[in-house]
């Protein structure tokens, strides 16, 4: 043994485990309106303060304040609120459907509804998002048919994906929603390629990609940022930092050392860090990044700072690794409540209207579930057996012809 000091391995630990007092005291949360909003033409090197702060618009008095206020029309805000409320109603109903054995799996996006809803509405119809499994509100904001969602979740005869995919791994090209896959991160670079293709084709469409903070550790994150940076790809790269990757807290993905937005600096692209529970802030930052992309100024990385209020999935029990009441102490609150209070504060909304919308949405979700149930829940109704062999290739080769014959006989 040498007489040098012994090394020790550092392993990050969250502030609180089950049974302990949750604490978010370590978070630095600037006041709404406090962060500057630079011109979209500003060079990256003048933007390096932005990844270390937090862009917020809705203040403690429910007013929209500061330079990032997107000054949205009431209609747009109500549309966003509706998409968020619908997402939550759908999540609650389908989570229950899983408990009732009607499907094998479900994942909620509770607490993160503002992200998909605001970004879906802020982008154009021809733009393409490359989602994760936790941005259902993107589809809700674009009025994707509820029954098709439930049919996919029940994997029944009318499942648009023919029973091939796990529940919630949707694909909805016409809604700007790229095919989901269970392996995390692997589509982050597709968004960059899609955006490069749009630029090559002299199109005006842009791409938007999601990745969770846990998945930023995958090589795909580095690859996408490198390609996006090198080719000035018209893409908005979003890290949804909901603090948890199943049971691993964000520190295991590197959150103790820097912010996820700050990773942009090393790639020479702007990084924004945004209050992910603030519908207006998400909208404004997305619009800023989208305009940069559309004007050939290249990619932006946005960290959407939020909290995964529920378990990772129906297969997960979060009380085994974090305090049961941690979600209720999250300092950025609830995205639905915050937008609702803002609308009420501006006098265009009230509790009665809100309750009536909630009930209308609940009825719509129930009706969709009922309609899908008529076709069949998981295992009670299936796509035709031919569908197991379709779409492997454009046309069957002899193996698939023979194997289909085998299962038919």
């Amino acid at each position: 043994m040498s007489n040098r000091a012994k090394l020790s391995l550092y392993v990050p630990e969250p502030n609180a485990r089950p049974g302990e007092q949750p604490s978010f005291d370590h978070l630095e949360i600037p006041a709404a309106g406090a962060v500057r909003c630079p011109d979209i033409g500003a060079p990256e090197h003048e933007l390096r303060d932005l990844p270390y702060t937090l862009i917020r618009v809705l203040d403690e008095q429910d007013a929209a304040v500061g330079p990032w206020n997107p000054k949205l029309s009431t209609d747009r805000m109500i549309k966003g609120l509706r998409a968020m409320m619908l997402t939550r109603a759908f999540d609650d109903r389908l989570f229950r459907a899983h408990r009732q054995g009607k499907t094998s799996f479900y994942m909620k996006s509770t607490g993160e509804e503002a992200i998909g809803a605001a970004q879906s509405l802020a982008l154009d119809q021809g733009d393409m998002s490359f989602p994760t499994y936790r941005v259902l509100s993107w589809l809700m904001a674009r009025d994707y048919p509820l029954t098709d969602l439930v049919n996919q979740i029940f994997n029944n005869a009318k499942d648009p994906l023919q029973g091939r995919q796990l529940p919630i791994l949707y694909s909805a090209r016409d809604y700007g929603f790229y095919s989901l896959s269970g392996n995390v991160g692997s589509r982050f670079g597709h968004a960059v390629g899609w955006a490069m293709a749009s630029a090559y084709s002299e199109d005006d469409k842009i791409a938007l990609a999601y990745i969770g903070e846990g998945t930023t550790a995958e090589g795909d994150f580095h690859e996408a940022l490198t390609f996006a940076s090198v080719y000035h790809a018209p893409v908005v790269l979003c890290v949804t930092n909901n603090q948890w990757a199943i049971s691993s807290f964000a520190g295991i993905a590197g959150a103790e050392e820097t912010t996820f937005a700050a990773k942009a600096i090393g790639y020479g692209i702007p990084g924004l860090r945004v209050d992910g529970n603030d519908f207006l802030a998400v909208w404004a930052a997305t619009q800023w990044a989208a305009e940069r992309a559309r004007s050939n100024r290249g990619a932006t990385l946005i960290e959407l700072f939020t909290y995964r209020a529920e378990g990772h999935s129906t297969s997960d029990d979060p009380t085994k690794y974090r305090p049961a009441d941690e979600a209720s102490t999250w300092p950025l609150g609830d995205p639905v409540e915050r937008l609702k209070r803002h609308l009420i504060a501006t006098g265009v909304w009230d509790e009665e209207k809100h309750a009536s919308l909630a009930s209308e949405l609940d009825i719509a979700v129930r009706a969709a579930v009922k309609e899908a149930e008529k076709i069949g829940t998981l295992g009670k109704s299936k796509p035709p057996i031919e569908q197991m062999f379709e779409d492997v290739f454009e046309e069957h080769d002899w193996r698939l012809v023979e194997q289909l014959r085998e299962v038919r006989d």
Partner: protein
Amino acid sequence: MIEAINDALDIMMSRDPSVIIMGEDVGFFGGVFRCTAGLQEKYGKTRVFDTPINECGIIGAAVGMGAYGLRPVPEIQFADYIYPGLDQLISEAARLRYRSAGEFIAPLTVRSPFGGGIFGGQTHSQSPEALFTHVSGLKTVIPSTPHDAKGLLIAAIEDDDPVIFFEPKRIYNGPFDGYYDKPVQPWKKFPQSKVPEGYYSIPLGKARKVRDGEAMTILAYGTMVHVVEAVAREKGIDADILDLRTLVPLDIEAIEESVEKTGRCLIVHEATRTSGFGAELSALVTERCFYHLEAPVERVTGFDTPYPHSLEWAFFPGPIRIGEAMDKILEA
């Protein structure tokens, strides 16, 4: 073969503006094997461009481009370096059509130099085709002549499914009969490798009859086609030689027809033996031609070791090992 590949790329780029080429050193420089020489100058740097050194990034970006509607032809500099891109090929490109019920497709053609016999050592010699033939949703193509390289590459680019196009680099400049101490004869000395001008394509899924015979069927692809042909000629064995050309889709009819005629079958590939594509071929021949077989199906392959450097010619399935296998089959 290099010129034939370059020609195929040129023709497809001139026919279809959605065809674009990307990869390490493929742009200004024209590729480390010159396969993309002159294309950037002709078609511009937005259609033929250099990429960062990141195989996963190259294939991932190409999948995204395909989803948009382009027809990318990414190059992986050596098949030995395709592994960082495997997640993109297996989990994404191969599955995209299936999992999206046809909403999105991945019409890419991944070109990559492959195979040994060039003193490439462990990471410039591998033949990883079996990793890809095992993946549902991928097509795997391996040409053995300039004529086929051009026609098959054009067909691969036009195909709406993802294609892995392996180019045996040992025969880039001329055929190789397995005698490594003899000088290489350039392709232009072989009239049968003459490449027609202009557009033509060779359908994927069709084997090429290299030579008609009665004594045994030999199944081979890539460089090994030339080696087995030379051995059969030298030994005076009346072999029925099939160059498979595409492993997926596989020309099962041609294989069955030949083995039913000859009753004997030899399979030769450079790749390591265990779970190599030869195992699949052997199983298919045994399952489908069992009552016609007069001898056990034999395989001559690379050994189950990493590809060695100085012991290359002991590893490579050369004329001696192939000749012994032929004798064994005929004696059975």
